[in-house]
């Protein structure tokens, strides 16, 4: 006889993985649109955000269905973690949309002549998202823990870029509008890394039942 609860749990996991791959693609595409000044790709990312939002609602519904069956222990942790991971993925999608919006606006204006390490920032944030999701799939708590400190590196690089852009704006006031787009895009990448960190922390809870958020010592 099939265990219907286990089947429901596996469906939830699969749905979350589908949502994760959508969110990951959205970030990838938004960064590409930004770097390559690709207006069409930017518009596509914006349009696709509705799909990610729909996933969040669907996952919540599935999780609530499963919670009515009152799961316990690792099953309970998986359901609650799935709800939190999907919320973080939805926000990653939102940030990708913000980047896409800036990419669209920047694509319509002349490029700013400044050397920015945005590809590195994007690479770091994307790698964190990918590794966090891999750790969820593999249920690899050690890998998830290793992701958390990387958020600080992303923060530092974002600060560097922010300072460089601020200086550029002071020296070239005609570029302020465009530089602000870059500042917002970099900030979105920094937020994406935050969400990846959140997902990693949830994976640690899933695997170890240990809450490592906010560095609170219990």
């Amino acid at each position: 006889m099939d265990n219907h609860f286990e089947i429901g749990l596996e469906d939830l996991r699969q749905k979350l993985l589908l949502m994760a791959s959508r969110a990951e693609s959205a970030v990838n595409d938004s960064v590409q649109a930004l770097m390559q000044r690709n207006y069409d790709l930017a518009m596509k990312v914006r349009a696709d955000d509705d799909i990610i939002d729909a996933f969040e609602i669907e996952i919540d519904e599935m999780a609530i269905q499963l919670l009515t069956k009152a799961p316990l222990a690792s099953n309970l942790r998986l359901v609650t973690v799935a709800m939190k991971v999907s919320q973080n993925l939805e926000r990653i999608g939102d940030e990708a949309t913000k980047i896409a919006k800036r990419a669209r606006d920047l694509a319509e204006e002349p490029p700013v002549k400044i050397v920015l390490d945005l590809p590195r920032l994007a690479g770091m944030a994307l790698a964190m998202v990918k590794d966090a999701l891999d750790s969820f799939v593999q249920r690899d708590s050690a890998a998830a823990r290793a992701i958390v400190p990387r958020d600080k590196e992303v923060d530092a690089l974002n600060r560097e870029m922010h300072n460089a852009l601020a200086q550029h704006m002071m020296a070239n006031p005609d570029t302020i509008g465009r530089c602000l787009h870059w500042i917002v895009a970099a900030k979105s990448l920094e937020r994406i890394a935050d969400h990846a960190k959140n997902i990693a922390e949830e994976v640690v809870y899933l695997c170890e039942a240990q809450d490592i958020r906010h560095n609170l010592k219990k």
Partner: protein
Amino acid sequence: MATLSKPMPNATLEPPTGKATALAVRGLSIYFGDHAVLKNVSIDIAAHAVTAIIGPSGCGKSTFLRAINRMHELNPEARMEGEIRLFGDDIYSRDVESVVVRRRVGMVFQKSNPFPTMSVSENVTVGLRLNGLRDRRQLAERTEESLRMAALWDEVKDRLQAPAISLSGGQQQRLCIARALAVQPEVLLMDEPASALDPLATQKIEDLIIELKKDYTIVIVTHNMQQAARSSDATAFFYLGELIEYGPTTKIFTKPAQKRTEDYVTGRFG
């Protein structure tokens, strides 16, 4: 009551709630013939707390409960090893009568079992009357007090002389709890007290259990994981006669330490 005559052996598991110990069980084994139903169980049960005993059928949880008020002695094939102390008193000491133990340790069963020929109030006071209490005023006072504690008074105060079996299933179970409380026990044992009740009656029993722990030490056997999660402070998981894991209920149901506990509470076996 007998007092402590020898040092207790070390407990293998400590009470999880940080409260005083009501029941100290050491090396408890119970055999029915050659079959060991409980194997070397040591556990400290906290006073003024609810301790849930969970485990699959045949794991020894009901036998454990019955051992706490010496009910397994009613089975001539039963043999016991080990020690159970109730607030320091050895309940199996030779100079302690089982009837005295059962007065200190009340029991409520799975199926409500009011005395069918007695009225509501007679059911409550039967234990007191058997113990020789005759004073009508005192009996009436204790009836009201017990029915109030069992959260039944408001529902039956106008029909105390009605037959007990005229009450609903949930009310009958609370009447049995009132009957157990009337003799003022220290510990209340409950063997699946809500398994035959509908959700509303179950909720009343669970609310009552939480209220009663202010005054009593409660040990409840249940197959219902959610009931254990809702009403108990500590949970002990038994499997094949052994105590596998014992800890705060929240921990047992969110992050059990033992794989067998995890498998049981997630429904992978049992």
